[in-house]
Structures are given as C-alpha cells and as structure tokens.
C-alpha cells in the first residue's frame, strides 16, 4: 500500500477529515470549513483547487439571495482515496507495533 501524496499534506488531510466528519456527500460551507481547519481564505482556496483537480472534491458556487455561497463536497473517488490513505497510516503504525 502507498500513501496518497495529495491527501497527506497537513491542510488537505484536515479538509478531507472535515468533509468526512460532516457526512461524506453532504456539502460543507466554505466559511464553516475554514473555521474547522483554521486556514486563511487564500490557503484554503488553493488546497481545495488541488483536491478538485485530483477529483477528490467538488466545489459548487451559487447565491443565497444576493449573498455568494461556496459549498464543498467529497466525491466517491475522494472518499475511497481518503479511506485508503487512513488504512495506509494504520498499517505504518501497526508495522511498528508488531515489530516491537
């Protein structure tokens, strides 16, 4: 098993974890996501673009009245990649525990 280099970056790992915590397919508001992962607008935006290019998240932009709204959801591919990465991390830890 190999680590997922896109997901493993600290902020992207938090983004994927936050999306998973709010219920995989349920869109998460940009503002709420920013508060959960404690990132700046620019930083979060650039890492979301990386995840979107990898096909791990989708970003929807619309308006609620006159107010712009950005919502992010995890794709099926993103969920699968995230679970694979978590399994890899557990494997690394278990390997150490077994050899100890």
């Amino acid at each position, binding site marked *: 098993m*190999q*680590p997922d*280099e896109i997901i*493993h970056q*600290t902020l992207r*790992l*938090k983004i994927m*974890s*936050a*999306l*998973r*915590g*709010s*219920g*995989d*397919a*349920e869109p*998460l508001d940009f503002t*709420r996501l920013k508060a*959960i*992962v404690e990132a700046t607008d620019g930083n979060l935006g650039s890492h979301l673009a990386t995840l979107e290019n990898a096909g791990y998240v989708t970003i929807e932009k619309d308006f609620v009245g006159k107010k712009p709204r950005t919502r992010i959801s995890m794709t099926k591919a993103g969920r699968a990649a995230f679970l694979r990465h*978590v399994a*890899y*991390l*557990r494997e*690394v*830890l278990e*390997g*150490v525990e077994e050899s100890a």
Partner: protein
Amino acid sequence: MNISPQQAADALRDIELTESHSRQLHQYQSGSSILFLWGVIWMIGYGVTGYSHKALIWIPLSVIGMLATFMLSRKFRHHYTPADWKVRGRKFGLSWVVIFAFISSVYAVMQPHNPNVFAAFPALMVAFSYGIAGALFLPRYLWLGIAVFALTLTGFFYVADGYNYWMAVVGGGALMLGGLWLRKA
C-alpha cells in the same frame, strides 16, 4: 514518499480531532431545527393549555412533533446503510413509547393534584435529557439543559398562576433561541 510511524501517528490524531470537531458541528446544525420546532410546539401547547385549561392539545402536538423530529433527523441518513436506518427508525419510535409510558406511569403513581406539576414534569424530563446528552457528547446541550431546568423551576415556584403562559413564552422561547444558538456553532 515515506511516512515515519511518528508522522503516521500525528496524521491519524489530526484526522480523529478534525473529524470529531466537524461531526459535532454537523450534529449541532441538524439539532438546531429540531430544537426550534419543539420551541414552537411548547409555545402552542402551553399557550393553549393555559388558555383553555385542557391538556388534550398535547396529544396531536406530540405526534406532530415526533414525526417532524424524525423527518428532520433524516439529515443524518447518509451516515447509515438503508438497513441500519430502518433499525434506527424503529428504535426512535420505541424510545418515544418508553418516554410516554414513563411520564404516564409517574403521573399514575404520584397522582399530582396541582396542574402545574403536570406541566412542569415533561419540561424537567427534557432538561434532564439535554443535560445528559450535553455531559456525555455535545457540550452545548448541557447549557440548554441547565437553562430549561432553571426556567422551569423559576416559573414553578414564582409564577404559579400563569405557569403555562410562562412555559409557553419563556420555555418555548428558550428552546427557539437555543436552536438558533446551535445553528451558529
């Protein structure tokens, strides 16, 4: 790319913390509509009871509240498989039967003569449930439980004559404000 055991442990801890924080906020969001709904139900129920001195309004209101609560909790549906969701639905229905049976049994055994006791007891049950949920899982519910306890008891001991109106405005209003507070979490 090589990940050391220490890095793996740190990453897993970050995942756990972020997931649980996100899940908690999601639960507050979903709970906010349910709390607001019950605030409206309290306003109507206690208001009508105070005006007519008849408590029968609580039967249809409780059924409507229970069904609406179940519909609103469908937001969590994607967390479960369809089979698990069915089981949860049955457990949800059963837990309401237990709550009604418990409240009716207490009334039957204690036989209260003061109508305010009939009004206060379900509210204290709600406060108790929120307090336990808050102490064990979601801290904001603990504050809600404390607020409902305090308002219910304050009304019971100091506003005896207009107690139902007190519970309609202050109790129902507190639940509605609590719902908005959870939404802001």
